[in-house]
Protein backbone atom coordinates (compact mmCIF):
# COMPACT_ATOMS: atom_id res chain seq x y z
CA UNK A 1 0.00 0.00 0.00
CA UNK A 2 2.91 2.34 -0.59
CA UNK A 3 0.80 4.39 -3.00
CA UNK A 4 -1.30 5.43 -0.02
CA UNK A 5 1.67 7.44 1.16
CA UNK A 6 2.21 9.09 -2.19
CA UNK A 7 -1.32 10.10 -3.09
CA UNK A 8 -2.44 13.35 -1.48
CA UNK A 9 -5.44 13.63 0.79
CA UNK A 10 -8.62 15.36 -0.40
CA UNK A 11 -11.57 16.69 1.58
CA UNK A 12 -14.99 15.89 0.16
CA UNK A 13 -18.05 18.15 0.31
CA UNK A 14 -21.43 16.89 -0.84
CA UNK A 15 -24.62 18.84 -1.50
CA UNK A 16 -27.71 16.69 -1.05
CA UNK A 17 -30.74 16.93 -3.33
CA UNK A 18 -32.68 19.08 -0.88
CA UNK A 19 -29.65 20.87 0.59
CA UNK A 20 -28.58 24.40 -0.24
CA UNK A 21 -24.96 24.11 0.77
CA UNK A 22 -22.16 21.60 0.40
CA UNK A 23 -21.38 19.84 3.67
CA UNK A 24 -18.09 18.26 4.59
CA UNK A 25 -18.54 14.50 4.69
CA UNK A 26 -15.06 13.00 4.78
CA UNK A 27 -11.78 12.61 3.01
CA UNK A 28 -10.01 10.26 0.61
CA UNK A 29 -6.73 9.67 -1.20
CA UNK A 30 -6.40 10.34 -4.92
CA UNK A 31 -3.60 11.24 -7.30
CA UNK A 32 -5.32 14.28 -8.84
CA UNK A 33 -8.58 16.23 -8.91
CA UNK A 34 -10.25 14.14 -11.62
CA UNK A 35 -9.61 10.94 -9.72
CA UNK A 36 -10.64 12.56 -6.44
CA UNK A 37 -14.03 13.53 -7.90
CA UNK A 38 -14.68 10.01 -9.18
CA UNK A 39 -13.58 8.43 -5.92
CA UNK A 40 -15.75 10.88 -3.99
CA UNK A 41 -18.71 9.87 -6.12
CA UNK A 42 -18.04 6.20 -5.46
CA UNK A 43 -17.21 6.45 -1.77
CA UNK A 44 -19.61 9.15 -0.54
CA UNK A 45 -22.67 9.16 -2.82
CA UNK A 46 -23.51 5.46 -3.00
CA UNK A 47 -26.74 5.90 -1.08
CA UNK A 48 -28.24 8.76 -3.09
CA UNK A 49 -26.65 11.35 -0.83
CA UNK A 50 -25.50 13.70 -3.51
CA UNK A 51 -26.55 16.12 -6.20
CA UNK A 52 -23.18 17.88 -6.35
CA UNK A 53 -19.68 17.13 -5.10
CA UNK A 54 -16.71 19.36 -4.31
CA UNK A 55 -13.21 18.12 -3.57
CA UNK A 56 -10.33 20.19 -2.28
CA UNK A 57 -6.77 19.27 -1.43
CA UNK A 58 -6.54 18.95 2.34
CA UNK A 59 -3.23 20.81 2.39
CA UNK A 60 -4.95 23.78 0.71
CA UNK A 61 -7.21 24.30 3.70
CA UNK A 62 -5.96 26.87 6.21
CA UNK A 63 -7.15 25.90 9.68
CA UNK A 64 -7.16 27.68 13.01
CA UNK A 65 -4.70 26.42 15.58
CA UNK A 66 -6.30 24.32 18.33
CA UNK A 67 -3.77 25.80 20.81
CA UNK A 68 -5.13 29.31 20.28
CA UNK A 69 -8.72 28.25 20.85
CA UNK A 70 -9.11 30.29 24.05
CA UNK A 71 -7.73 33.43 22.47
CA UNK A 72 -9.74 32.93 19.28
CA UNK A 73 -13.15 31.93 20.52
CA UNK A 74 -13.63 32.44 24.25
CA UNK A 75 -13.77 36.26 24.20
CA UNK A 76 -17.12 35.95 22.39
CA UNK A 77 -18.66 33.92 25.19
CA UNK A 78 -19.85 36.83 27.38
CA UNK A 79 -21.04 39.02 24.53
CA UNK A 80 -24.53 37.67 24.10
CA UNK A 81 -25.70 41.09 22.92
CA UNK A 82 -24.15 40.22 19.58
CA UNK A 83 -27.08 37.94 18.91
CA UNK A 84 -29.76 39.77 16.98
CA UNK A 85 -32.48 38.49 19.33
CA UNK A 86 -32.08 41.67 21.39
CA UNK A 87 -33.41 43.88 18.67
CA UNK A 88 -37.00 44.37 17.61
CA UNK A 89 -37.38 43.70 13.90
CA UNK A 90 -39.95 45.40 11.70
CA UNK A 91 -42.69 42.93 10.78
CA UNK A 92 -41.84 42.86 7.06
CA UNK A 93 -38.27 41.68 7.72
CA UNK A 94 -38.57 37.94 7.53
CA UNK A 95 -36.05 35.17 8.02
CA UNK A 96 -33.42 36.83 10.17
Amino acid at each position, binding site marked *: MSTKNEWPLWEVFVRSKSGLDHKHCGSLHA*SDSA*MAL*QMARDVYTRRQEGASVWVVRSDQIVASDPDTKDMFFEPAEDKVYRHPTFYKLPADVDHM
Partner: protein
Amino acid sequence: MDANTLYVLRIADACLIHGQRLAEWCGHAPVLEEDIALTNVALDHIGQARSLLALAGVLEGRGRDEDALAFLRAEREYRNPTALELPNGDFARTVLRSFLWASFMKVLCTALAASTNAQLAAIVAKSLKEVRYHQQHAGDWVVRLGDGSEESARRMGDALALLWPYTAEWFADDEIDAHAAASGIGPAWSSLQSAWRAEVEPVFAEAMLTPLADTPFRSTGKRGVHSEHMGFLLAEMQSLPRAFPGAVW
Protein backbone atom coordinates in the same frame (compact mmCIF):
# COMPACT_ATOMS: atom_id res chain seq x y z
CA MET B 1 -35.30 -21.27 -26.37
CA ASP B 2 -36.22 -19.00 -29.22
CA ALA B 3 -33.78 -16.59 -30.82
CA ASN B 4 -35.05 -13.46 -29.04
CA THR B 5 -34.73 -15.11 -25.64
CA LEU B 6 -31.16 -16.07 -26.48
CA TYR B 7 -30.45 -12.54 -27.69
CA VAL B 8 -31.51 -11.10 -24.32
CA LEU B 9 -29.70 -13.90 -22.50
CA ARG B 10 -26.40 -12.99 -24.17
CA ILE B 11 -26.60 -9.48 -22.73
CA ALA B 12 -27.87 -10.69 -19.36
CA ASP B 13 -25.14 -13.31 -18.99
CA ALA B 14 -22.44 -10.85 -20.05
CA CYS B 15 -23.55 -8.51 -17.24
CA LEU B 16 -23.82 -11.35 -14.75
CA ILE B 17 -20.41 -12.88 -15.46
CA HIS B 18 -18.64 -9.53 -15.68
CA GLY B 19 -20.23 -8.52 -12.38
CA GLN B 20 -19.07 -11.77 -10.80
CA ARG B 21 -15.50 -11.21 -12.01
CA LEU B 22 -15.41 -7.60 -10.79
CA ALA B 23 -16.81 -8.68 -7.42
CA GLU B 24 -13.71 -10.83 -6.97
CA TRP B 25 -11.81 -7.58 -6.44
CA CYS B 26 -13.82 -6.82 -3.30
CA GLY B 27 -11.24 -6.48 -0.53
CA HIS B 28 -8.31 -6.83 -2.95
CA ALA B 29 -8.19 -3.61 -5.00
CA PRO B 30 -4.98 -1.55 -4.93
CA VAL B 31 -6.51 1.16 -2.74
CA LEU B 32 -9.62 1.37 -0.58
CA GLU B 33 -11.31 4.00 -2.76
CA GLU B 34 -10.92 1.89 -5.91
CA ASP B 35 -12.11 -1.17 -4.03
CA ILE B 36 -15.42 0.57 -3.43
CA ALA B 37 -15.53 1.90 -7.00
CA LEU B 38 -15.02 -1.56 -8.54
CA THR B 39 -17.61 -3.07 -6.24
CA ASN B 40 -20.08 -0.36 -7.25
CA VAL B 41 -19.54 -1.27 -10.89
CA ALA B 42 -19.94 -4.97 -10.08
CA LEU B 43 -23.23 -4.26 -8.34
CA ASP B 44 -24.47 -2.21 -11.29
CA HIS B 45 -23.79 -5.20 -13.55
CA ILE B 46 -25.53 -7.64 -11.20
CA GLY B 47 -28.50 -5.28 -11.15
CA GLN B 48 -28.58 -5.15 -14.94
CA ALA B 49 -28.30 -8.94 -15.05
CA ARG B 50 -31.25 -9.33 -12.66
CA SER B 51 -33.57 -7.22 -14.83
CA LEU B 52 -32.42 -8.85 -18.06
CA LEU B 53 -32.57 -12.40 -16.70
CA ALA B 54 -36.09 -11.76 -15.41
CA LEU B 55 -37.03 -10.58 -18.90
CA ALA B 56 -35.36 -13.62 -20.49
CA GLY B 57 -37.36 -15.82 -18.13
CA VAL B 58 -40.60 -14.18 -19.27
CA LEU B 59 -39.66 -14.50 -22.94
CA GLU B 60 -38.75 -18.14 -22.44
CA GLY B 61 -42.13 -18.80 -20.84
CA ARG B 62 -41.12 -21.82 -18.79
CA GLY B 63 -41.54 -20.17 -15.41
CA ARG B 64 -37.84 -19.71 -14.66
CA ASP B 65 -37.08 -16.58 -12.64
CA GLU B 66 -33.85 -14.58 -12.49
CA ASP B 67 -32.37 -16.81 -9.76
CA ALA B 68 -33.10 -20.01 -11.64
CA LEU B 69 -31.42 -18.59 -14.73
CA ALA B 70 -28.48 -17.10 -12.86
CA PHE B 71 -27.65 -20.06 -10.66
CA LEU B 72 -29.22 -23.25 -11.95
CA ARG B 73 -28.03 -23.53 -15.51
CA ALA B 74 -25.20 -25.67 -16.82
CA GLU B 75 -22.10 -24.15 -18.40
CA ARG B 76 -23.19 -24.63 -22.00
CA GLU B 77 -26.41 -22.74 -21.33
CA TYR B 78 -24.61 -19.48 -20.49
CA ARG B 79 -24.36 -17.16 -23.47
CA ASN B 80 -21.89 -14.46 -22.43
CA PRO B 81 -19.04 -13.60 -24.79
CA THR B 82 -15.86 -15.34 -23.63
CA ALA B 83 -14.00 -12.08 -22.91
CA LEU B 84 -16.06 -11.50 -19.78
CA GLU B 85 -15.32 -14.83 -18.14
CA LEU B 86 -11.53 -14.65 -18.49
CA PRO B 87 -9.73 -14.30 -15.15
CA ASN B 88 -9.25 -10.74 -13.90
CA GLY B 89 -5.48 -10.91 -14.15
CA ASP B 90 -3.86 -7.73 -12.85
CA PHE B 91 -5.53 -4.38 -12.35
CA ALA B 92 -4.57 -3.25 -15.87
CA ARG B 93 -6.37 -6.17 -17.47
CA THR B 94 -9.40 -5.64 -15.24
CA VAL B 95 -9.84 -1.96 -16.08
CA LEU B 96 -9.13 -2.49 -19.79
CA ARG B 97 -11.81 -5.17 -20.04
CA SER B 98 -14.17 -2.98 -18.07
CA PHE B 99 -13.52 -0.10 -20.45
CA LEU B 100 -13.92 -2.20 -23.62
CA TRP B 101 -17.14 -3.75 -22.38
CA ALA B 102 -18.60 -0.51 -21.00
CA SER B 103 -17.94 1.09 -24.38
CA PHE B 104 -19.77 -1.77 -26.05
CA MET B 105 -22.66 -1.58 -23.58
CA LYS B 106 -22.94 2.13 -24.18
CA VAL B 107 -23.49 1.72 -27.93
CA LEU B 108 -25.66 -1.38 -27.42
CA CYS B 109 -27.91 0.30 -24.84
CA THR B 110 -28.20 3.37 -27.05
CA ALA B 111 -29.35 1.22 -29.96
CA LEU B 112 -31.66 -0.88 -27.76
CA ALA B 113 -33.61 2.23 -26.77
CA ALA B 114 -35.46 1.63 -30.06
CA SER B 115 -36.25 -2.01 -29.23
CA THR B 116 -39.72 -3.29 -30.10
CA ASN B 117 -39.71 -4.89 -26.64
CA ALA B 118 -40.76 -2.04 -24.33
CA GLN B 119 -39.43 -3.75 -21.23
CA LEU B 120 -35.99 -4.18 -22.78
CA ALA B 121 -35.98 -0.53 -23.85
CA ALA B 122 -36.84 0.50 -20.29
CA ILE B 123 -34.09 -1.66 -18.75
CA VAL B 124 -31.38 -0.29 -21.03
CA ALA B 125 -32.46 3.30 -20.43
CA LYS B 126 -31.44 2.81 -16.79
CA SER B 127 -28.33 0.80 -17.66
CA LEU B 128 -27.09 3.46 -20.06
CA LYS B 129 -26.53 5.93 -17.21
CA GLU B 130 -24.56 3.30 -15.32
CA VAL B 131 -22.36 2.20 -18.19
CA ARG B 132 -21.53 5.79 -19.13
CA TYR B 133 -19.93 6.13 -15.72
CA HIS B 134 -18.24 2.72 -15.98
CA GLN B 135 -16.72 3.80 -19.28
CA GLN B 136 -15.47 7.07 -17.85
CA HIS B 137 -14.02 5.52 -14.70
CA ALA B 138 -12.35 2.58 -16.43
CA GLY B 139 -11.24 4.73 -19.38
CA ASP B 140 -9.60 7.10 -16.95
CA TRP B 141 -7.51 4.23 -15.59
CA VAL B 142 -6.67 2.98 -19.09
CA VAL B 143 -5.17 6.39 -19.86
CA ARG B 144 -3.37 6.66 -16.51
CA LEU B 145 -1.78 3.24 -16.88
CA GLY B 146 -1.24 3.23 -20.64
CA ASP B 147 0.42 6.64 -20.52
CA GLY B 148 1.91 6.12 -17.07
CA SER B 149 5.14 4.50 -15.98
CA GLU B 150 7.14 1.99 -17.99
CA GLU B 151 5.73 -0.78 -15.79
CA SER B 152 2.09 0.31 -16.09
CA ALA B 153 2.40 0.77 -19.86
CA ARG B 154 3.87 -2.72 -20.18
CA ARG B 155 0.97 -4.17 -18.19
CA MET B 156 -1.61 -2.29 -20.25
CA GLY B 157 0.07 -3.51 -23.44
CA ASP B 158 -0.03 -7.10 -22.17
CA ALA B 159 -3.70 -6.70 -21.25
CA LEU B 160 -4.51 -5.38 -24.72
CA ALA B 161 -2.67 -8.24 -26.42
CA LEU B 162 -4.64 -10.73 -24.37
CA LEU B 163 -8.11 -9.15 -24.50
CA TRP B 164 -8.32 -7.58 -27.95
CA PRO B 165 -8.67 -10.84 -29.94
CA TYR B 166 -11.66 -11.77 -27.76
CA THR B 167 -13.54 -8.59 -28.72
CA ALA B 168 -13.89 -9.93 -32.30
CA GLU B 169 -16.55 -12.33 -31.04
CA TRP B 170 -18.78 -9.43 -30.05
CA PHE B 171 -19.18 -8.41 -33.69
CA ALA B 172 -19.33 -11.88 -35.25
CA ASP B 173 -23.02 -12.21 -36.10
CA ASP B 174 -24.97 -15.43 -36.27
CA GLU B 175 -28.62 -16.40 -36.80
CA ILE B 176 -29.60 -14.94 -33.41
CA ASP B 177 -28.36 -11.48 -34.44
CA ALA B 178 -30.12 -11.80 -37.79
CA HIS B 179 -33.38 -12.77 -36.12
CA ALA B 180 -33.12 -9.99 -33.53
CA ALA B 181 -32.52 -7.37 -36.19
CA ALA B 182 -35.37 -8.68 -38.33
CA SER B 183 -37.83 -8.81 -35.42
CA GLY B 184 -36.76 -5.40 -34.14
CA ILE B 185 -35.91 -6.51 -30.62
CA GLY B 186 -32.37 -5.23 -31.06
CA PRO B 187 -29.52 -4.59 -33.48
CA ALA B 188 -27.22 -7.23 -34.91
CA TRP B 189 -24.08 -6.70 -32.84
CA SER B 190 -21.91 -6.35 -35.95
CA SER B 191 -23.76 -3.12 -36.74
CA LEU B 192 -22.33 -1.62 -33.53
CA GLN B 193 -18.67 -2.12 -34.41
CA SER B 194 -17.93 1.26 -35.94
CA ALA B 195 -19.70 3.12 -33.12
CA TRP B 196 -17.74 1.02 -30.61
CA ARG B 197 -14.46 1.80 -32.31
CA ALA B 198 -15.34 5.48 -32.21
CA GLU B 199 -15.77 5.19 -28.43
CA VAL B 200 -12.58 3.22 -27.91
CA GLU B 201 -10.10 4.90 -30.21
CA PRO B 202 -9.91 8.40 -28.64
CA VAL B 203 -9.17 6.85 -25.23
CA PHE B 204 -6.63 4.49 -26.78
CA ALA B 205 -4.91 7.44 -28.46
CA GLU B 206 -4.62 9.20 -25.12
CA ALA B 207 -3.41 5.99 -23.50
CA MET B 208 -0.74 5.42 -26.20
CA LEU B 209 -2.45 2.18 -27.18
CA THR B 210 -3.14 0.97 -30.71
CA PRO B 211 -5.98 -1.41 -31.60
CA LEU B 212 -4.54 -4.68 -32.86
CA ALA B 213 -5.08 -6.12 -36.32
CA ASP B 214 -7.89 -8.64 -36.67
CA THR B 215 -6.94 -12.31 -36.44
CA PRO B 216 -8.84 -15.45 -37.48
CA PHE B 217 -9.40 -16.30 -33.79
CA ARG B 218 -13.07 -16.24 -32.73
CA SER B 219 -14.10 -17.16 -29.21
CA THR B 220 -17.49 -18.83 -28.90
CA GLY B 221 -18.96 -17.99 -25.48
CA LYS B 222 -22.04 -16.43 -27.11
CA ARG B 223 -22.90 -19.88 -28.46
CA GLY B 224 -22.36 -21.54 -25.08
CA VAL B 225 -18.91 -22.94 -25.80
CA HIS B 226 -16.72 -21.38 -23.14
CA SER B 227 -13.10 -21.19 -22.08
CA GLU B 228 -11.66 -23.49 -19.42
CA HIS B 229 -12.14 -20.71 -16.85
CA MET B 230 -15.93 -20.69 -17.00
CA GLY B 231 -16.48 -23.90 -15.03
CA PHE B 232 -14.47 -22.63 -12.08
CA LEU B 233 -16.31 -19.32 -12.10
CA LEU B 234 -19.70 -21.05 -12.14
CA ALA B 235 -18.69 -23.51 -9.43
CA GLU B 236 -17.96 -20.61 -7.10
CA MET B 237 -20.94 -18.50 -8.18
CA GLN B 238 -23.44 -21.34 -7.94
CA SER B 239 -22.15 -23.10 -4.83
CA LEU B 240 -24.39 -21.35 -2.33
CA PRO B 241 -27.73 -21.60 -4.19
CA ARG B 242 -26.97 -25.22 -5.02
CA ALA B 243 -26.05 -26.12 -1.44
CA PHE B 244 -28.96 -24.18 0.05
CA PRO B 245 -31.80 -24.17 -2.52
CA GLY B 246 -34.10 -21.18 -2.10
CA ALA B 247 -31.76 -19.46 0.37
CA VAL B 248 -32.56 -15.79 0.99
CA TRP B 249 -30.81 -13.08 2.98
